[in-house]
């Protein structure tokens, strides 16, 4: 609290970014965890809440006659533009936010103060929802070829690895330790995914410290052990996900890549995914395009191409496809690494797992996948997503890219995933929100030391509780396209990769389809289920009535007949009425907010609610519903909605609609 210089500023204006002429007046509050803007309009009192941990940058712009503008960019791609009347207030808010957005201790993060009012037991249950031991059991390990190793029990071999790692049975502790000494950050080859059907596996590690000529017998034995764990195949692929040039440059630093001659029976393969710095600047460039005010089609397409973003997404996907193919079709095991083996390697292993195993395409499975390939294997969440104040060069949208790959796959296979786009968006949101403990720190070791599970809550339990909001109504696990391995199209790539408007312009509601097919179908599905239940009840009653009728047939059969008739006709009526019910459901779907009525997720709910109320386009009754694209605002005459009269002089001058 000591960092808040200015807890409240009045008469602040919040600017609508799409049309800068619209602004709402309200009060700005700074709390220990949130920035809150409350509109003055008395009926709605609409609120916009932004978590400090979501703030990625704050920009104070030149003071104008109307006040001092402050631009807040968020990690979930929300952009908030405020105009604060007094420059001194603006400065105070600015200084406060700079500090609040960059906490220096983990204890300052929201998850340590966030209290969803669950008891201890519920919290513990929450953390147990996703278990990696069960997951490896599900895959079929330990077995004859793979075992759990306690070599890293106290994180002594590798401090960024989990305590429990799965390694080939033939790899002794001596081999593991020896191999770890020959790998960057001691990240030795360990099992990420095992394919029961053909024994092929995906293992992951960091780059070998091979330099120009160094060798390590144990490391060579380690790779051989991985190959032997798959008796059906006489070689393994070693996939280096870096561009060849980068890998070669690493050799000069005593690192590098495997020499095919030194390892028996490996096939080495480069897949050029760029490093975190290239990705950071690529996202930056793409976001600049998203921020353009009324860009032309050319501006947009050029900007998108220039950013290279989709090219990078494709590179990651291609790597995942290569590995999935090797495992599923060739039955060959794969060892994946990049430099340290915690960014590109995590991306590629998880994309490959997702393609290979339908389980990861369920809601629960997807949580497990993130837990396995990202959380447990030491993806540096704190550094990459800037949770604590740190080196800005460490920040990079690594998991964002993975999440986008999933979305791109969802677009190609609309029936293959149990969850919907909203699920992905909310996971992305919470990776940055620090509201739950899952993604804190850089490794399992740090999380254990901080006692995360005892002091914070798990996101997975929260998402699971609200799973109805994240269901994909089109999901069909029995569909031929979605069973077994997904085989995405690879060429031509023309149409395949699309700009993800739902994520990067998430808060520009006017740009999205005004009617949500997912919500509609979910409503229909629920309705159908209800009707089916009703039908069942009615059938039971009918059967009972028939029985009664049978018993009483002799006495008063006529009356019973009449009763039965009435029964039936009412049930028919209720069926005939459903179309109206559907449409009322449709009209009310905006209220089916993802976390509605759920006090725990206050940050998210409020933003969601805000979106809704800020978006007249969704409030089904007014004429505003469909949302007007303000075209006239681009006419140079400015001013009114349409060009005002010009002063009597004739003319051939007219107003242009620039398009």
């Amino acid at each position, binding site marked *: 609290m000591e960092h808040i210089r200015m807890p409240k500023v009045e008469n602040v204006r919040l600017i609508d970014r799409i049309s800068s002429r619209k602004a709402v007046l309200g009060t700005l509050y700074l709390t220990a965890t949130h920035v809150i803007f409350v509109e003055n309009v008395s009926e709605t009192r609409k609120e916009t809440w932004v978590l400090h941990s979501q703030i990625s940058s704050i920009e104070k712009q030149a003071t104008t006659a109307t006040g001092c503008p402050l631009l807040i960019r968020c990690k979930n791609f929300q952009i908030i533009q405020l105009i604060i009347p007094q420059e001194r207030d603006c400065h105070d808010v600015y200084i406060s936010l700079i500090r609040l957005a960059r906490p220096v201790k983990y204890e300052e993060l929201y998850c340590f103060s966030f209290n969803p009012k669950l008891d201890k037991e519920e919290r513990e249950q929450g953390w147990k929802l996703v278990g990696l031991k069960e997951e490896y059991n599900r895959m079929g390990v330990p077995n004859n070829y793979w075992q759990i190793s306690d070599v890293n029990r106290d994180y002594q071999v590798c401090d960024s690895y989990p305590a429990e790692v799965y390694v080939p049975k033939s790899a002794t502790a001596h081999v593991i330790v020896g191999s770890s000494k020959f790998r960057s950050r001691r990240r030795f080859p360990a099992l990420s995914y095992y394919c029961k059907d053909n024994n092929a596996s995906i293992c992951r590690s960091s780059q070998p410290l091979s330099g120009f000529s160094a060798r390590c017998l144990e490391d060579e034995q380690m790779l051989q052990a991985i190959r032997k764990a798959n008796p059906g195949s006489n070689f393994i692929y070693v996939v280096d996900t870096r561009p060849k040039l980068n890998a070669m440059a690493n050799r000069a630093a005593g690192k590098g890549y495997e020499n095919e001659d030194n390892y028996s029976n490996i096939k080495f393969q480069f897949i050029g995914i760029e490093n975190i710095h290239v990705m950071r600047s690529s996202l930056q460039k793409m976001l600049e395009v998203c921020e353009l005010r009324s860009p032309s*089609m050319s501006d947009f397409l*050029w900007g998108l191409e220039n950013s290279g973003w989709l090219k990078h997404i494709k590179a990651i996907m291609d790597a995942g496809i290569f590995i999935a193919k090797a495992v599923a079709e060739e039955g060959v095991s794969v060892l994946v690494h990049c430099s340290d083996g915690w960014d590109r390697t995590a991306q590629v292993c998880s994309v490959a797992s997702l393609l290979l195993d339908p389980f990861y395409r369920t809601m629960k499975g997807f949580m497990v996948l993130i837990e396995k390939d990202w959380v447990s294997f030491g993806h540096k969440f704190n550094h990459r997503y800037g949770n604590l104040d740190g080196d800005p060069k460490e920040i990079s949208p690594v998991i964002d890219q993975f999440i986008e790959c999933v979305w791109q796959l969802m677009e190609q296979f609309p029936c293959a995933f149990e969850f919907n786009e909203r699920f992905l968006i909310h996971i992305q949101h919470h990776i940055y929100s620090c509201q739950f403990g899952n993604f804190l720190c850089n490794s399992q070791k740090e999380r254990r030391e901080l006692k995360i599970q005892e002091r914070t809550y798990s996101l997975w339990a929260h998402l699971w509780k609200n799973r109805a909001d994240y269901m994909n109504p089109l999901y069909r696990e029995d569909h031929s396209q979605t069973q077994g391995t997904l085989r995405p199209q690879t060429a031509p790539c*023309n149409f395949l990769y*699309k700009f993800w408007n739902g994520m990067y312009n998430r808060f520009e509601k006017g740009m*999205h389809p005004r*009617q949500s097919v997912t919500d509609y179908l979910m409503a229909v599905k629920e309705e159908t289920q209800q009707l089916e239940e009703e039908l069942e009840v009615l059938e039971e009653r009918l059967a009972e009535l028939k029985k009664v009728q049978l018993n009483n047939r002799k006495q008063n059969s006529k009356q019973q007949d009449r009763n039965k008739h009435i029964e039936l006709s009412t049930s028919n009526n209720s069926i005939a009425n459903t179309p109206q019910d559907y449409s009322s459901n449709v009209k009310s779907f905006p209220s089916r907010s993802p976390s509605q009525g759920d006090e725990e997720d206050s940050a998210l709910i409020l933003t969601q609610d805000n979106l809704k109320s800020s978006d007249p386009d969704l409030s089904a009754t007014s004429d505003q519903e*469909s949302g007007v694209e303000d075209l006239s605002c681009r006419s140079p005459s400015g001013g009114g909605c349409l060009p005002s009269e010009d002063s009597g002089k004739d003319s051939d*001058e007219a107003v*242009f*609609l620039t398009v």
Partner: protein
Amino acid sequence: MEFAELIKIAKVENVQLSCPGLLPVKGTLCITSHHLLLSSQPGGNGEQGMVELWLLLRNIDAVEKRVASSSGSITLKCKDLKVLQLEIPGMEECLNISRSIEALSSVESVMMMYPFFYRPQSMKLKDGWQLYPLQHYYQQIATETTAWRLSCVNGEFTVCPSYPAAVIVPTAVDDNTLKKAARFHQGGRFPILSYYHKKNGTVLLRSSQPLIGPNRKRCPEDEQLLSAALNRGERGFIIDTRSAQAAKQARMMGGGTESKSSYPCWRRLHGPLERGRPLQESFIKLVEACNDTSLSMDRWLSKLESSKWLAHLKGALSTACLAAQCMEREEACVLVHGAEGTDTTLLVTALAQVILDPECRTLTGFQGLLEREWIKAGHPFHFRCARSAYSHARLKQEAPIFLLFLDCVWQLGRQFPFSLEFNEHLLLVLFEHTYASSYGTFLCNSEKERCLCEVKEKTHSLWSWLNQPSQQKKHLNPLYTYNALVIWPSVEPQSLQLWQDPLTLDIRPRFKQWGL
């Protein structure tokens, strides 16, 4: 001319057909007056079973042949953008086949086209041609206001050859005045009512450019006609689909645009839209980019950008929204015109109606809209759709303006997935039928030509086929719920997507259309 003279060879055995999305098929190839047929050998086709391809020769845009000593291959590039490859044993057979296809597919005479020969048993001639008469549309307006009347001034197509026989005009203006106003407009296309907005009584008018010329001519009858469209004290907007500069330049060629001094109640806006050759070139570039399978992600985006197709799309939607906004929000009447008034003008007026009027978003309402605003309104389909994106022939008057319209409607459907009663499949079918069809609906350039060719007497209407219950079922949007509101689309680049269906080479979605 006899078709038989053009058929150099009627039948070749052991021809292999391959196209994306289909395993190669081997069978017998036949050439008839209007079709290319390929029927697979029984049993020789594995899982696919019997395959029979019926391809209208009219659909073929380009024929590319490669011959070797003992065989040859022909690539057929279709106007609906599909690409087929035929492997033909025998060099001579190959040459003869390609010569026959080239000759038959470029028959120019309308009366020789397939719709004049197509006689399905299940349908009756004349059905469907009277489904959407303008009289019906007028009667709806007449229940709301007496300010508009139906005029038969163009009954003989003498006042305006590209207008239909009946048009809706202000009651206050007599036919003589109309005739004089017509002489002041290019092609005689004087301002007529295109759409009546029931909600507030405003109207959408369309015309061609006034013939103002370098000497700034005026026409009192035209001024009278336009002021009669407004109530006393009302103001209207003229939306010119050219840039201000282009409109000004048009004066040198005898055209121009309404000046403020002569039409004091009207304010001019410009929403420049591309048409004609630049649009056709954009289409060609787009198709090239889509068919280039070697493109990397980067080159694809820049090729897409340089085709400008999406920019045209954005422009069309923006201008249509502007027209709709003037009517709905400003409660003002709108006149739309470009130069000839048969292309971008119709694009804007038709699109504005889909945005404003829920009736136009139903299956029959949409057909009615196409009938009124494209076919009867004199969009020169015969010229515009003579060739498609693959043709090597010199471009004449081809332009995919109607395809652009369908694409815009597709975008509306994507942004408002419950608001259109029909689905994208219908849009795809319409696209295909404008270029090659068994039905007469899109033949000729105007009602006058259709009368001369007796299209309505001698061909079947596309609508009567589409309205058969079995067809209708395929074209309905299961999510449709009537939405009385205006559907304002977002025209931000992020919100517009490439409509892939017509552009993918994969033949599978078209199996049914082609009788595969």
